[in-house]
């Protein structure tokens, strides 16, 4: 039995010894928590970098936690509950579920922890019903981003296109807003028809499969709008597999490095760039202002840009 104890103690000690720096309520600096959807996506890694730079500059301690998988809102809820116990000064969060996370934020509210919502908005009704009022929202307007993509397609296609759409996880505010923006933009051009619109759940391999199936059903598709670059990159591979590289316009979202390479190579038309590190920076700055009792605007819009071959240097 001594071995159980020794082994568990050793593991715990080993895991903790390298993390002493992170637990610093003791040095008097306020702590800001940043809870991300996941850390295995470049978008959130960039966001953390921006947040860390701002925290270092402002002299606050930043605690970053994330669920293992982007969709695991129950795990995210546990993280929020646990962080509240450590007496964080403010909570910045990118909700994995716009409605579901509200239950956890109620607990933050009851513990008087101010909330900064980043990137994905809370469901307005669920938040209002629970009495959760975030101090501010920091993010890009996904609707505007979708519109940017739609307007661009109208321009490059001369108002004539047959479009396949790859959606994110159904019911996700982020993807739904991008989709609405895109649809509203292309409505202006009667020559543009959306022939298929299917979810590929934000994933690259599903983007491949779903678009391959779409091409089977509608061989006349000449344009793709994917609500994220990972799905767009999957579609590009499906296009290559069908021997149609360069003949189908692919417009994505996020401007990932791989997407920029594809745009430079001509296999992708454009991608809407967000600036996650900017979001992280503004989120931490806002949180610090709230802790200091300064006022913050209810909504901070982080810029969006369309990346095309022309804008890449």
């Amino acid at each position, binding site marked *: 039995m001594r071995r159980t104890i020794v082994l568990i103690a050793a593991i*715990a000690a080993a895991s903790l010894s390298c993390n002493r720096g992170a637990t610093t309520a003791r040095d008097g600096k306020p702590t800001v928590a940043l809870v991300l959807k996941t850390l295995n996506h470049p978008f959130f890694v960039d966001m953390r970098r921006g947040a860390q730079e701002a925290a270092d500059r402002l002299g606050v301690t930043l605690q970053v936690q994330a669920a293992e998988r982007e969709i695991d809102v129950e795990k995210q809820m546990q993280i929020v509950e646990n962080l509240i116990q450590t007496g964080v000064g403010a909570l910045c969060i990118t909700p994995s579920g716009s409605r579901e996370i509200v239950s956890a934020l109620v607990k933050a509210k009851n513990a008087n922890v101010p909330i900064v919502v980043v990137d994905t908005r809370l469901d307005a009704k669920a938040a209002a019903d629970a009495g959760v009022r975030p101090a501010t929202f920091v993010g890009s307007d996904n609707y505007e981003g979708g519109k940017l993509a739609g307007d661009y397609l109208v321009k490059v296609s001369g108002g004539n296109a047959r479009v396949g759409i790859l959606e994110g996880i159904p019911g996700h505010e982020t993807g739904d807003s991008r989709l609405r923006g895109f649809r509203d933009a292309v409505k202006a051009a009667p020559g543009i028809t959306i022939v298929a619109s299917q979810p590929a759940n934000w994933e690259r391999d599903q983007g491949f499969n779903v678009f391959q199936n779409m091409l089977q059903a509608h061989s006349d598709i000449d344009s793709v709008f994917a609500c994220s670059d990972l799905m767009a990159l999957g579609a590009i591979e499906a296009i290559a597999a069908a021997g149609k590289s360069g003949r189908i316009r692919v417009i994505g979202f996020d401007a990932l490095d791989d997407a920029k390479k594809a745009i430079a190579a001509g296999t992708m038309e454009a991608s809407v760039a967000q600036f996650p590190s900017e979001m992280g920076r503004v989120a931490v700055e806002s949180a610090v202002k709230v802790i200091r009792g300064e006022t913050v605007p209810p909504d901070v819009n982080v810029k969006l840009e369309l990346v095309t071959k022309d804008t890449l240097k």
Partner: protein
Amino acid sequence: MPAGIPIRQFGTAIGLIVLCGILWILTPHFLTVANLLNVAEQTSINAIVAVGMTFVILSGGIDLSVGSIVAFSGVVLGSALAAGQPLPIALAFGLATGIGCGLANGALISWGGLPPFIVTLGTMSIARGAALLFTEGRPISGFSPSFRVLATGRLAFIPAPVIVMAVVYLVAHFVLTRTTFGRYVYAIGGNEEATRLSGVAIRFHKTMVYAVSGLTSAIAAVILTARLNSAQPIAGMMYELDAIAATVIGGTSLMGGDGTLAGTLIGALIMGVLRNGLNLLGVSSFLQQIVIGGVIVVAVLLDTVLKRNRA
């Protein structure tokens, strides 16, 4: 009962206490009433799923479908509530879905003669697909406070999920140790052929074991749905692995026939305390996975070493 079991269970309990002691030294936030209740509440879902898993593993099987059954039962419950069914009816629908999936698993394993791994792997995919199909992939959310009290309610400071967990463990412990069905679960896992030759209706009892697992998954689904105020078709992914881990850390042998529910509860608590403590300490989420994986491997290693010494 073999002499090694109480000692080993005792050891797991000491492991838990030592873990708590280390966290107590490292962070002032761990040993507070609020945080311990927090841990108990967070552990409840995995602990309840692990009850059914313990029955299955004791009988010498495995159930990979529990996470998907959580999702499927959850969305059936959620849509019944959303359709305006009274709470008892909606709960009955949800629990019946779980039991139904479990019965299907059990029947295919017992009468179909298929390996549990394959059958429940299939059900894992079927139940997940059914949950997605049923909801068209969208979460069902926004339930009445009378339902949400199952997650948010408290009885003298104790959160409702913890009370449900305690009741499930008491009932299941009684079934496992004080009923013939319970004894047969151990017997089947210990030596199925010998049990069959002594006249036990193996097929029936094995089917019931998987029904128990479906039922506990559905009970977990009720709490999860109330907790998130949302029934998600993508809920419960990887719950099977957490439940197997809790069972195994708790000293139940994957070969069947040997283990206790008290051990499983301690196993689930060790995982919950670890996750909580690593959050409190601000350990990176990547490192957390390594630590939890390490604890599982060490627990099984210990199990093996102790068995060898006993033999």
